[in-house]
């Protein structure tokens, strides 16, 4: 059965090639169907593989061919099938196919439709490579591949340089992380002599031979994860990445690619478990990101920006969990998050579709009467992310909080704040978008409509998923009676270091209630502000409180990096170019030539044509030689 796994990445690749080379003489529908079908097939295969994993949850390697064999350095194109990877490919292909389907409707008008579909297929291919590879180098292939796809898709509308800049920014910042990953690889190979998970962790355990390098290796890996998963301080690219079409934001920048970092850390849970310090770093990066993302999201008015920052902050939650050793729970949150965040993005896409490209929630309002499906599904997504029982978000987030509570109270409080913020800004956006009266222009209002079926179907499916998706990871307290508690934890235990909360049932329940209480309070607050009192969010120029401005400016990270990194580099480069390249080196090279001539000019004085001089030189030479003897 596992042998099938080799085919899973194959189909999207085929899709990409077909559309690229044969796409010109195919109808848009045909292209769309082909692309979706390819990912769909992969999804079927993935679920088959997953089901086998359900029964025997051990890791199997499927080697395709030798890749790089140099002396002791041996790396193959070879896939790993184990609970972690099978879970990942399941939701990647699942959500992926849904989003493909959605894109058929969403991008139908765009002239670059074929290009878009082929890129999406290529992305899925690399993403599958990333999670299926059985060694770091193959993971790196996928890692960079998804980076390029994200580059191409963010800059999909390449005629506007703003998009291209966003794309470039995403790629370059990702490269910073990639360098960390590269160095981690070289270090691990030098110390452990292999890059295969099998040798390193599963059966070999060579990772232990890192010795004093453990922490460094872990941190380097985490730097890689930071770049991909937009963790502080490398988070600035993700919000800009919203320049891409909405399905891209849903697929790449919410559901799958940005969670690759979590995959990496979870994959190397043995390594991180060995280094206390690295875990601390991960935790705090996560916490800071979570709080920062949530706080910024409070003030954003672009519907996609809000979702982007909420993604940042949710990723923060996941890394906090990883740092606290709750690897399986982080993965759990990845899955649930994939469901509801994809749902929210697609919903927002549907809204933008209806609003004719308008993204500012201050220009919306009262859409619920016009687009009921979008409204209800969006509501489900919002509740789910706010963490209300029994929606998916509740379980995962609740358990992260539980871990925080027993590990470190400060972390717990901060995460609680972030959770509260999440509830507030999500509902703020929700109310501003769907409730109240319409604040847009007339032709927009006239144009309002529900999206086509290709777009609503994915919404419904994802809505269902985000409703029941949480049940794969029941918390101890509630699940005990049903004998399904921590099912995911057990399922993954073969791969990642298992660590489920040891709070007793009552504590868990109290915690859950507190969390929900806070969320509920926030929701009420939002309702009170934006629905009952009908207040609209402030226009930018009306803002006068400093904190608000700071949040609106996203703590000014972009400006900061501009000033402390990009500008200095340009300055140094141009300085070198002017002083070293053009002045110093040239003068040395050409100067050496002219100095020879200068010396010669001094000698030229002697060659003055006078016999006397020549005689003097001869006699002088003679005398000199006589003295030299």
């Amino acid at each position: 059965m596992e042998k099938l796994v080799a085919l899973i990445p194959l189909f999207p690749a085929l899709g990409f090639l077909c559309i690229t080379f044969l796409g010109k003489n195919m109808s848009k529908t045909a292209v769309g169907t082909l692309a979706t079908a390819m990912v769909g097939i992969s999804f079927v295969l993935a679920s088959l593989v997953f089901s086998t994993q359900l029964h025997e949850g051990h890791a199997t390697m499927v080697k395709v061919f030798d890749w790089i064999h140099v002396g002791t350095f041996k790396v193959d194109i070879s896939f790993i099938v184990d609970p972690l990877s099978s879970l990942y490919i399941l939701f990647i292909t699942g959500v992926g196919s849904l989003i493909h389907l959605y894109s058929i409707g969403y991008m139908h008008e765009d002239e670059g439709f074929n290009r878009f579909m082929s890129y999406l297929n290529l992305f899925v291919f690399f993403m599958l490579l990333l999670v299926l590879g059985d060694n770091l180098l193959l993971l790196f292939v996928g890692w960079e591949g998804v980076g390029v796809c994200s580059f191409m898709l963010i800059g999909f509308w390449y005629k506007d340089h703003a998009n291209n800049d966003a794309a470039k920014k995403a790629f370059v910042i990702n490269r910073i992380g990639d360098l960390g990953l590269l160095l981690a690889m070289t270090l691990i190979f030098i110390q452990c002599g292999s890059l295969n998970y099998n040798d390193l962790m599963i059966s070999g355990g060579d990772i232990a031979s890192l010795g004093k390098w453990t922490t460094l290796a872990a941190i380097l890996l985490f730097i890689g994860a930071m770049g991909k998963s937009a963790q502080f301080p490398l988070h600035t690219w993700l919000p800009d990445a919203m320049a891409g079409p909405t399905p891209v934001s849903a697929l790449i920048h919410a559901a799958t690619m940005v969670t690759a970092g979590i995959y990496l850390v979870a994959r190397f849970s043995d390594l991180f478990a060995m280094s206390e310090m690295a875990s601390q770093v991960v935790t705090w990066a996560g916490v800071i990101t979570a709080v920062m993302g949530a706080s910024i999201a409070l003030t954003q008015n672009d519907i996609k920006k809000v979702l982007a920052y909420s993604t940042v902050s949710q990723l923060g939650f996941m890394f906090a969990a990883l740092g606290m050793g709750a690897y399986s729970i982080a993965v759990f949150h990845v899955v649930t998050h994939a469901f509801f965040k994809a749902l929210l993005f697609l919903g927002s896409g549907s809204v933008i579709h209806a609003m004719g490209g308008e993204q500012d929630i201050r220009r919306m309002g009262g859409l619920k009467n016009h687009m009921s499906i979008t409204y209800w599904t969006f509501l489900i997504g919002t509740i789910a992310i706010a963490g209300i029982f029994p929606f998916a978000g509740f379980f995962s987030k609740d358990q992260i909080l539980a871990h925080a509570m027993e590990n470190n109270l400060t972390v717990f409080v901060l995460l609680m704040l972030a959770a509260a913020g999440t509830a507030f800004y999500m509902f703020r956006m929700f109310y501003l978008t769907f409730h109240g009266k319409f604040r847009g222009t007339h032709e927009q209002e006239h144009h309002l409509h529900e999206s086509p079926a290709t777009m609503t179907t994915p919404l419904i499916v994802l809505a269902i998923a985000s409703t029941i998706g949480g049940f794969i990871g029941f918390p101890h307290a509630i699940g005990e009676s049903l004998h399904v508690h921590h099912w995911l934890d057990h399922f993954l235990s073969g791969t990642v270091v298992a660590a489920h909360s040891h709070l007793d049932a009552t504590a868990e329940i109290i915690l859950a209630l507190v969390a929900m209480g806070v969320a509920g309070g926030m929701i009420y607050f939002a309702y009170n502000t934006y629905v009952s009192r009908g207040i609209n969010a402030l226009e930018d120029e009306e803002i006068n409180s400093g904190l608000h401005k700071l949040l609106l400016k996203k703590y000014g990270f972009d400006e900061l990096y501009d000033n402390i990194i990009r500008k200095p580099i340009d300055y140094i480069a141009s300085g070198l170019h002017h002083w070293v390249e053009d002045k110093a080196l040239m003068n040395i090279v050409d100067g050496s030539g002219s100095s020879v001539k200068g010396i010669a000019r001094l000698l030229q004085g002697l060659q003055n044509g006078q016999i006397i001089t020549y005689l003097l030189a001869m006699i002088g030479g003679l005398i000199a030689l006589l003295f030299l003897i």
Partner: protein
Amino acid sequence: MIILLISALLGVALLALEIFKLRSWMMPLMLISFMAILAGTAIQWGLAENIMNQNMISMDAFALKGISILTILAAFWLVTQHKNIQATGNSSDLYALIAFSFCGALLMTNFTNLVMLFLAIEILSIPLYVLAASKRGDQLSNESGFKYFLLGSVASSILLFGIALIYGATASFDLYTIHHFMATQNTHPWIMVGLVMMLVGFAFKISAAPFHFWAPDVYQGAPTPITGWMATVVKGAAIIGMFRLFAGAFEGAMSTFAGIIAIMVTLTLIIANGMATLQHNVKRMLAFSGISHAGFLLSTLLIPGFASQALMFYILGYGIASLIAFTIMQNVGSQIGEELHAFEGLAKKSPFSAAMMTIALLSMAGIPPLAGFFGKYYIISGLMGHYTWLTIIMVLTSVVGMYYYLKVIFVMYGKSENGASYTENGKLYPILGAIALLTLFAFSAFI
């Protein structure tokens, strides 16, 4: 002995031909006698070292090598310069003088007695004084002749004084006796002083710094064919004689002289290459490059075990190359001018001349796989490990050398043009080209 006779009689014969109005026979006669000399060396090659006439000369292997090389050069010179010499009108005198100085050059290779050395040098030089000044109307030619004569005679009198002192110390002019004396007796101060003065005399002849000042002026002023002769055959003969003397008879004293010679080599290389970069007159530039090659030639005295084949090889390679260069120089100079810009666009006017010039210059610059490279190679590899610092100086200066050789090539192949017309001189060129290529490429291997 027969060899020397041929060369000596040659001059007389040439004068006789003039009397009988048989100028057209001169060139064949000379060629034949050169061939005869080569044949003679070939015959004697096998024979054991034979000393003749009361130890005056000795036809040993070194001498035969030297003779054959000088003869080859002379023959090549004749082939390339014949037309130009004829053009001067008084070819018989010139040929006769050339023949005499050639005879002196041969003597330089095989003397075993200081008297013979002195005579050889004088036979070699005195015709040259005349030849240098042979362009009667031309003031530059006169000036060069006069300078050469005056400085040359001073140099030979210094040399003579050295000879006298050595005679005073060793009571003999015979090199073997002197060699034996120096090997047995403790060195007499007179010998040292005498040696220094002889060194000066020779340094002047091969134009090594600081006794080189005459060379650029004389080379520039003298008629180009004569310059070619002086730069190749004469310089070769001088260095061969010097090598024979210092590496042979006085080798005992070389330990004391090595330092001095190294310094002279360094000075020569630096001054000559430096000065050459400033020249706009190509002929003068070639003169300076000739001086820099004298530096290389002189440095063969420093090679442990005195690698005479390195010396011979260098003379031949450098000689052929610079003869080619001077031939092209003569044609361009007589038709357009001697300044650098006279060469502009030569590649278009006569690709062949340009190609020959380029090959010659690159060979002198020591670019592989030309002979000049191997010449430098043998010397540098000989010095490597013993005078490593000198090899580095040689390398650096040859980069400088590359610069001024390249300037000419640039001008020839560059885009700029001068209107002047140019016609190749003589049908011999293809043959000459063949010979040159053969010697410059192929024979790199056979030594």
